[in-house]
């Protein structure tokens, strides 16, 4: 058992060390969350139906899109695109589910999605054989297994019966599999992916980019994966003008621009008209279905509901909404319409409570709606948003998004005139976030000192309910970022107030739109830029440091990634310089290649629905890919593993250069030998506490211990916090040196989403003592699990050692034991905690109010926890639909048992 003189005791001690350092040790008693409310009967039934429904993908839309596309070779590209979208929309078979008050969805299942091979078809081509094989074999499995809700939740984790599993998530009827492959084939050499790939190869240094991607220094390409999203929708035009009103605007535009310079405006306007004709047909097909259901219905109340739905849809297929219910239905239709035009994550409805407030207040004043009805509608809205699925490229859906779609709804913030924007409807939105827990729309409080206490306490109540939302976001810090970033495009203070979170945590600019109701102007906020998080996606900072230490080589694979940096690394400054060199090299080539991809995207697959919605596309006659939006400084550079990087730098500085405890060579060896531990891959677990020493662990015991003992971020320790600040100041500044496709400076974005799992998986041990294959620190200013030993306020001090308004965001995830915030006093204490962080200039903090032991139970027995929600890194997701790496990491996070 023991080898090379190691005793079992040593082994156990070492194991305990790991546990102590690596995250959370559960206490004794499993404690549930405090607040439990139930949704209305209608929403409850709908949610039950949702729980029973599997992610289902279908070919209707892509078939018609492709069929039309093929017929229109030679057409002006944006018109070809518009006609294809129209063909897709008008052929979608309508499906209306029992009890729905809000109709319509992406396609013809409850949790519907479909592939968009015009973005990328490579996956299907590569999987052709596999899919045929599975189609053959799936039928042999017993069909009854499909009803089992379990690991994977609504995901179709394997092929069974007449259903093929795609990427372990989406179910496709076997009848549609051959046509899916045929349609995919037609996009070969024509998809955004293929065309972009052809030309990105012309960027000097392209081979280095390939190596960067293979080594997972960068997680994924930007241009064809999720070209839209991470932005805030703007619902103003349909709410104000209705579809026919917008068509009229476009027809006037056509008459104004036809034959004049900047002729592309002509095609844009014509394209919008064409697309809207498709959307109209789609709505009217649903209206027809509602009338059909009414004709079948015996039960009077239900019959009336179907009839009312049909009338509503018929009305808003042409006209602006008449009331709150109309407005909510209209908002939902256009939200889905945007989602149907592209692979999108993070399409945020934004400050919906403020957008809809004028409609709602007027209904209240007219006695047309009461609190109960409002709650019911808002709960229905939650279900609808939760039904959204995103069929993006595979690695993206799993590895980055964890299946989440990030439809962030913000409450709070300020009005155009600088007064608090929090309103009664937003209180009800928070209320239904509690009564009807679902992942979507996730909620964010735009925290401003001007917000009423009552409103903030409602937010606390909701956070305490444990679904992971609302996140708390600093309104003033974000406004400062927005003003800085968009000032050169004309952003002023007043308009900065219209900002909101787009997607997970991306600060996105907004505009105030003059909603005219009965002659009275209400200034409503709405998104005013395209996707604010495209460009250079997720760069693994610890992996870059690894290549610095090994002079450009990925030691996991032995492949050279960068040319030798030429430093002997004899000083800490050389390490830091080497890091900056490699990081800059990576950003340089990734920025260029992603620009090429985005150019392919805007040419092949330009946005029509979202462009139509965003000011000032209709005014300018330009789509989002032609800078039609009011603000266009929207390309960012995303980091992953900030804290792991900084802790590693601190350890190197301390142990090698300051105290000279070890040589760099010793560290190289320790890293290659994983400090004498088995790798996470070997142990089969990514849990930080589950790592196992190998037999020769004692050889590295001291260096590992001293690495773990080196100063760690999150403890208000100036030694490491100074390193953190130096990194942030440099990163946020250097990002501006890179230019987007639209010739705008890029900016830093610091959220990990789920990438710290897979990126950690391919990264060797790090000098901070983290072991090979385990996840990185989450978020961007979260402490590494278990290393923040001085309580939340010390963590806050560390996290705010730099100015967060330099960056699009920062991300702090905290796990709090339910007992700590229990009761009214707990709530006040909780609010004070958040206030303290905000006042220090923290940008964002979010919480899991959960007992880690419950998560452990849920991991062991997923069937019983189908509805358990947790917060990951900017999003809430069903526990059972998370990958194991991320589950392990959430369990391991430091759990605060006092504040």
């Amino acid at each position, binding site marked *: 058992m023991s080898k090379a003189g190691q005793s079992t005791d040593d082994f156990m001690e070492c194991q305990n060390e790991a546990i102590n350092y690596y995250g959370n040790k559960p206490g004794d008693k499993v404690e549930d969350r405090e607040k439990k409310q139930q949704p209305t009967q209608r929403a409850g039934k709908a949610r039950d139906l949702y729980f029973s429904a599997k992610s*289902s993908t279908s070919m209707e839309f892509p078939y018609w899109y492709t069929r039309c596309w093929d017929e229109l070779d030679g057409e002006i590209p944006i018109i070809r695109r518009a006609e294809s979208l129209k063909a897709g929309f008008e052929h*979608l078979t309508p499906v209306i589910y*029992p009890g729905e008050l809000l109709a319509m969805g992406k396609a*013809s299942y409850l949790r519907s999605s479909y592939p968009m091979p015009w973005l990328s078809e490579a996956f299907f081509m590569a999987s052709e054989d596999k899919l045929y094989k599975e189609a053959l074999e799936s039928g042999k499995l017993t069909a009854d297994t499909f009803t089992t809700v379990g690991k994977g939740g609504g995901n179709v984790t394997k092929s069974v019966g*007449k259903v093929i599993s795609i990427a372990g998530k989406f179910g496709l009827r076997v009848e549609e599999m*051959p046509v899916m492959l*045929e349609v995919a084939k037609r996009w070969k050499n024509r998809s955004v992916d293929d065309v972009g790939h052809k030309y990105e190869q012309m960027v000097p240094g392209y081979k280095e980019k390939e190596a960067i991607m293979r080594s997972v220094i960068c997680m994924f390409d930007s241009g064809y994966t999720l070209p839209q999203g991470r932005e805030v929708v703007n619902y103003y035009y349909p709410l104000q003008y209705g579809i026919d009103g917008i068509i009229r605007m476009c027809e006037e535009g056509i008459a104004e621009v036809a034959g004049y310079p900047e002729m592309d405006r002509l095609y844009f306007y014509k394209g919008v008209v064409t697309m809207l004709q498709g959307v109209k047909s789609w709505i009217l097909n649903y209206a027809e279905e509602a009338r059909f259901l009414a004709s079948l219905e015996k039960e009077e109340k239900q019959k009336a509901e179907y009839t009312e739905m049909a009338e509503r849809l018929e009305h808003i297929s042409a006209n602006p909404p008449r009331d709150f219910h109309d407005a909510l239905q209209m908002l939902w239709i256009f939200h889905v319409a945007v989602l149907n035009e592209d692979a999108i994550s993070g399409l945020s409805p934004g400050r919906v409570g403020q957008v809809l407030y004028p409609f709602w207040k007027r209904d209240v004043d007219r006695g047309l709606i009461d609190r109960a009805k409002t709650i019911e509608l808002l709960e229905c809205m939650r279900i609808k948003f939760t039904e959204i699925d995103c069929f993006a490229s595979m690695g993206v859906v799993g590895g980055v998004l964890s299946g989440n779609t990030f439809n962030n709804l913000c409450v709070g913030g300020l009005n155009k005139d600088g007064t608090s924007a929090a309103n009664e409807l937003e209180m009800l939105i928070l209320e239904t976030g509690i009564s009807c827990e679902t992942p979507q729309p996730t909620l964010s409080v735009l925290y401003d000192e001007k917000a009423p206490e009552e409103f903030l306490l409602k937010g606390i109540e909701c956070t305490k309910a444990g679904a992971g939302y609302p996140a708390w976001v600093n309104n003033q810090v974000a406004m400062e970022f927005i003003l800085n970033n968009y000032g050169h495009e004309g952003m002023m203070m007043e308009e900065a107030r219209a900002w909101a979170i787009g997607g997970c945590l991306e600060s996105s600019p907004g505009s105030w739109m003059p909603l005219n109701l009965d002659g009275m102007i209400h200034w409503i906020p709405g998104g005013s830029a395209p996707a604010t998080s495209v460009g250079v996606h997720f760069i693994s900072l610890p992996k870059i440091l690894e290549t610095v230490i090994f002079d450009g080589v990925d030691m996991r694979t032995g492949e050279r990634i960068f040319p030798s940096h030429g430093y002997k690394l004899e000083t800490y400054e050389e390490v830091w310089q080497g890091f900056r060199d490699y990081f800059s090299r990576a950003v340089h080539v990734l920025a260029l290649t992603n620009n090429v991809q985005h150019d392919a995207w805007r040419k092949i697959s330009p946005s029509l629905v979202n462009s139509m919605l965003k000011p000032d596309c209709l005014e300018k006659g330009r789509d989002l890919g032609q800078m039609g939006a009011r603000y266009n400084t929207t390309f960012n550079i995303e980091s992953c593993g900030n804290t792991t990087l900084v802790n590693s730098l601190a350890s190197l500085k301390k142990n090698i250069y300051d105290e000279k405890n070890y040589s760099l060579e010793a560290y190289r060896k320790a890293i290659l030998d994983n400090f004498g531990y088995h790798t996470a891959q070997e142990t089969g677990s990514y849990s930080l506490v589950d790592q196992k020493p190998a037999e020769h662990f004692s050889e590295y015991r001291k260096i590992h211990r001293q690495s773990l003992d080196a100063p760690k971020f999150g403890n208000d320790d100036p030694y490491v916090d100074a390193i953190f600040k130096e990194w942030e100041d440099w990163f946020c500044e250097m990002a501006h040196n890179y230019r987007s496709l639209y010739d705008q400076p890029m900016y830093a974005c610091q959220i990990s989403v789920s990438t710290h799992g897979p990126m950690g998986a391919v990264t060797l041990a790090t000098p901070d003592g983290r072991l090979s294959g385990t996840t990185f620190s989450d978020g961007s200013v979260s402490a590494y699990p278990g290393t923040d030993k001085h309580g939340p306020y010390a963590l806050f001090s560390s996290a705010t050692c730099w100015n967060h308004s330099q960056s699009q965001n920062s991300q702090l995830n905290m796990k709090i034991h339910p007992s700590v915030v229990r009761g009214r006093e707990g709530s006040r204490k909780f609010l004070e905690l958040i206030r303290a962080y905000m006042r220090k200039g923290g940008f964002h903090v979010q919480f899991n109010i959960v007992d880690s032991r419950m998560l452990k139970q849920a991991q062991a027995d997923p069937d019983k926890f189908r509805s358990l929600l947790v917060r990951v890194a900017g999003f809430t997701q069903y526990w059972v639909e998370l990958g194991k790496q991320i589950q392990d990491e959430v369990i391991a996070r430091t759990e605060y048992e006092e504040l």
Partner: protein
Amino acid sequence: MNTCNDCKFYLPVDVFKGICKLSKNDILPEDNFCEKAERIAKCKFCSKYTAEKEFLGKCMSTTLAYPDMIAAKCADFEWISLN
């Protein structure tokens, strides 16, 4: 023999199961037609569709099509004559 997913009263919930719009019962797409069932317009019921291989065929001789696509909104759909 037609199955429920060929029926105009079939409401699919997901790829595995659906609801009967008439009975409101949970049903499977593979269940056989009941006496109230009526065919929904699908390519395989269209006179302009010609089958080529399993789950693939042509629409109007030239255009890729597949038998199980619902064609209720297709402008060119024409019921095959019953036989």
